[in-house]
Each structure stands twice: as structure tokens, then as C-alpha cells.
């Protein structure tokens, strides 16, 4: 190799290292997003009767208007909104308490509990939903049996409770994951903060609530936004529950609705719904990034 060609090699090297990632990234991430957008702006029309050739006609935002006007749209959005309002705070509070307890626990207990809390995250959503579905099943359920012995009759798969039964599955699956993020943030705090608080006579709980929690705010925002994204995209759990509960309809969540539109060959409508969902998700994620960057900077 001559000395002269080295700089050229070095100029090309980073692009050569990036290309193997970038090609599939463009094909399987950027292009689908663009394609869905294009598809959402076009309607399929047929010429020459039912079996004629299809071609697409530009329709602007007409399909968005169609989708938004569908009765299922408001229902599924409200349902997911209600779910988010209740499930996310419950889960994050649970994860935060566990993280704070772990942060101040004895080392040996710490390792054991951390592992146990993380177990559900490794279990596929389908399997988690299957397990809990059986635990809720009135014929098999130890939970309903327990409630009944206490004089409570609860149909965990009925129209009133099934949303919260699903909420429990989601909480069970992701509490450990969120706990790990919060716990890592707590561990990254300098040790002398705690020292100083103790010298000032603050109790463990005061230190946790007044000092540690405000300091890990960025991590809390992060888990919050991850949870919002997850909730907007809710699919696997309700889809599995559909096979055991008639209360879960094919348009139960926006994502389920998009799936059933596809199954019904309404690709344009499905695309419009997907783009709407992705946009809302993206806007919220971006808002989070801005928020945390401002905190750090």
C-alpha cells in the first residue's frame, strides 16, 4: 500500500462500515414508513367492474378523515387513553418503589430480587398473555376461586374488567424492565448525596422522595414515554385475549383496528391509521427527547 492512497481509504472506510447497516435500514425502516404514507394518500379504484384492473388514485387526506369518522376510532382511542391514565402510573410507581428498595437493600438480596423482577420481561408477550388468560379463565382460575371464597364474584374476562386484566398482564411484563432503568439511574447517583442527607438527619424515605426521585427525573420521563409508546401500540395482549373473551373486539385498540382493516383488504385505511399512530408516537417520543435534553443541558 502506498502512502498516498491512505487518506482516500480512510475517507471511504466509514461509509463502507455504515453501508451494510444502512441498506437494510433504508429498505425495512425508512421505506415502509414512506410507503405507508404514500399508500394512505391514495385510494384503490377499479376500472371495468369487480374483477377489473386496480389502480390508485390520489385522494389526499380523505382516508384519514374516513378512519377518524369510523365509530371504532373514538372508542379504541378513548380505551387506550383510559388504559394509559391508570396502568402507566400504577406500573411506574410500582417500578419506582422496587428500584428505591433495591437501591437501599443488602447486596445479596439485591441480586436475587433484581433477577426475579426481570424474569417476566424475558417471557414473550404471547406466552405471558396465554399464562394470565388461563389464570383468569373462570373454569381454571385460582384468582376467581380466591375472590369467591372472600365473597366477591368477578368475571375477569367480562366487559367491565377485561381491560384491567390486560393492564395487569402489561404491568407484570414491564415493571421489571422499567425498574431496571430507574435502578440504573439510582446507582449512577454519587454516593455522597446519601451520606450528606444522613448527616443532615434525613430518614431513608425522605432521602428517597426529596432527593433521589427528583435527581432521576430524566429516567422517569424515559420510562413514562416508553410506556406511552407501548400503550399506543398495544396489540399482542388484546389479540391473544380475543380468543378467550368476547369482550375484546377486533377494533379494541387502534393497532388491532389497523390489523383488522388489513385483514379486510382495506390497505389504505390501515395505512392511514398506522401513519396516524406512528406520528402520535413519534411526536410524543420527540417531546420526551426535548424534555430530557433540556434537563441535562
Amino acid at each position, binding site marked *: 500500500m502506498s502512502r498516498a492512497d491512505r487518506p482516500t*481509504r*480512510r475517507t471511504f*472506510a*466509514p*461509509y463502507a*462500515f*455504515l453501508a*451494510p*447497516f*444502512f441498506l*437494510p*435500514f433504508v429498505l*425495512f*425502516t*425508512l421505506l*415502509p414508513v414512506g410507503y*405507508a404514507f404514500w399508500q394512505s394518500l391514495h385510494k384503490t379504484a377499479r376500472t371495468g367492474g369487480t374483477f377489473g384492473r386496480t389502480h390508485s388514485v390520489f385522494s389526499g387526506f380523505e382516508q384519514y378523515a374516513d378512519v377518524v369518522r369510523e365509530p371504532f376510532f373514538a372508542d379504541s382511542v378513548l380505551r387506550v387513553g383510559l388504559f394509559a391514565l391508570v396502568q402507566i402510573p400504577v406500573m411506574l410507581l410500582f417500578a419506582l418503589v422496587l428500584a428505591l428498595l433495591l*437501591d*437501599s*437493600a443488602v447486596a445479596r*438480596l439485591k441480586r436475587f*430480587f433484581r433477577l*426475579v423482577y426481570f*424474569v417476566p420481561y*424475558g*417471557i*414473550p*408477550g*404471547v*406466552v405471558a398473555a*396465554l399464562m*394470565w*388468560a*388461563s*389464570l383468569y379463565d373462570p*373454569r*381454571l382460575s*385460582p384468582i376467581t376461586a380466591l375472590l369467591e371464597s372472600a365473597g366477591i364474584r368477578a368475571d375477569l374476562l367480562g366487559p367491565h374488567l377485561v381491560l384491567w386484566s390486560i393492564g395487569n398482564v402489561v404491568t*407484570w411484563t414491564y*415493571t421489571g424492565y422499567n425498574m431496571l432503568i430507574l*435502578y*440504573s*439511574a439510582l*446507582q449512577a447517583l454519587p*454516593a455522597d448525596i*446519601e451520606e450528606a442527607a*444522613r448527616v443532615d438527619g434525613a*430518614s*431513608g424515605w425522605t432521602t428517597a422522595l426529596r432527593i433521589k426521585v427528583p435527581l432521576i427525573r430524566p429516567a422517569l420521563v424515559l420510562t413514562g414515554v416508553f410506556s406511552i409508546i407501548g400503550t399506543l401500540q398495544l396489540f*399482542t395482549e388484546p*389479540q391473544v385475549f380475543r*380468543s*378467550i373473551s368476547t369482550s375484546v373486539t377486533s377494533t379494541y385498540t387502534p*393497532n388491532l383496528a389497523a390489523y383488522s382493516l*388489513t385483514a379486510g383488504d382495506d390497505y389504505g385505511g390501515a*395505512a392511514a391509521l*398506522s401513519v396516524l399512530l*406512528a406520528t402520535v*408516537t*413519534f411526536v410524543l417520543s420527540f417531546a420526551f427527547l426535548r424534555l430530557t435534553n433540556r434537563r441535562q443541558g
Partner: protein
Amino acid sequence: MSLLTRTEGAHATRGVRTGRASTGAAVAFMTLAACYMLLPVYWLLVSATKSQGDLVDTPGLRPAHWHFGANLAALFRQQDGVFARWLLNSLLYAGAGAAVATALAAAAGYALAKYRFRGRELLFSVILGGVLVPATALALPLFLMFAEVDATNTFWSVFLPSVVSPFGVYLSRVFAAASVPDEVIEAARMDGAGELRIFTGIGLRMMSPALVTVFLFQFVVIWNNFLLPLVMLQDDDLYPVTLGLYTWQTQTSRLPVLQTLTIVGALVSVVPIVLTFLLLQRYWRAGLSAGAVK
């Protein structure tokens, strides 16, 4: 997200010395939480050992007659052993997919961390944007695209999209910046090594403990993937195990025996992921602390 990269070991000994009563309450709460996390797992273990009759007739959390062997045999006999096929498919999708994803992410992350070049920040922003695009929002347009080229219902329609891991690139960039010193790269250049050789011989080797984390994350993501295969695949020979179990579950009202098989199958399907975690745990820990020590 960088929070995930620095954990363990930074503060080995820390603990608030509080009163005995509150310590007791804390341990009690943590134990209760642990019971909650393990309850479904315990139920799965117990139920997998029951016959179909006992499953319906005996209390859910109490063991009945040991029927595990027979259940297992039935599981692998059902539909000419399609379950083994699903397991293999999942291993192939998740194992090979995560391996390729890790290799691509490592090279890209290394380039972003170790070279200054035109468009670097722009490319990185676009990739970060990719992290924010939810996988479920991609599944439907991906289906339409694969349909255009007549490639739905193929192995590749599920495999190819899973080799892209923007989050892996992000982590790799963090790891490369933390664990591959510029001086080492310079020294290798002085010795006349080519850029590719430096990456494979030095960069990859120094990043490898951390890359286990990228591999594990992607492995779990692909193994747990449900919507994409559900949308893409019709032929059950191509199903990953999650989709296979789901289709059995939907048929239990017609074929009650599938209920036992779904439960045993769910237990078996969790084994590979647990094994992967345990086998790679040591490297994984090393990877997580790499950022913290540096």
C-alpha cells in the same frame, strides 16, 4: 437510553441503615412483589405436569398426578412434530437474525464513534429516529411492500426486517467510544494495517463483551415478535414458536387437548431464552459495566 449501559458495580456497597421495622416492611414488600412476578411462572410449571382432565378439575396452583412426560411426548407428536419445527424456526429467526443485526450494528456504531466524516451527525440522527419508530407501526407497511414483490409468506419476509437494529447501532456507538482507544487505532495504522483489518482485529475484539448486550436485546426482541410473523406468514411450517402457540390457543374451543399442549409448549418455549440469558450472563454483565469502568 444510555442509562442502560452503565449499571452494575459502580457502587458496590451502599445501603441506608434504617430501623429494623422498616427493613422488615421493605423485605416483606419485595417478597410479595417477587411472588407476584413468579406466580404465573409457578402456575405454568404446575400446569405443565397435569393431564387435560386434571387441568380442568383440580385447583390451578396445586399439583395433581404427574403427567409431564406424556404431555411432552404429545407436544412433539402433535401435527407430525410441528412444534419442534417452530422452535427451530424461532432459533433461526432470533439466533441468526440477532447475530447479523449485531454485526451490522457493530460496524455502523464503530464508524460513527471512530471516524469524523461528512454527514456523520445527520446519519446518526436518522438512525436515532429509527429507534423511535415502533416495530408494530412497521409491520403493516412491510407486509404491503413484501406483497408488491410477492415475497410474503417466506422465511425472508420475517428474517430480513429483524436484522435492522437502530438501538443496537446506538449502543455500539457508545461501546466503541468507551472501549476502543484512538491511540490503539493510530498505532495499528502506523504499522500499516488496513481499516477493515483494524476493525475486525482490534475494534471488534475490544467491543465484543459489550456486543453481547446488543445480541441479547435483539434476540429477545425477535423471539418475542408476534405481529410481523402474524401478518406475513400463512404457512405454519414457517411459524416462530410464539405464533404457533397463539394459533393453538385460538383452536382450544374446538380441540380441548390443545390447551394442555399450549401450556407445555409455552413452558418449553421459554427454556431457550432462559438458557441464552444464563449462558451469556457473564459476558452481558461485563458489557454493561464496560461503560461504567472506563
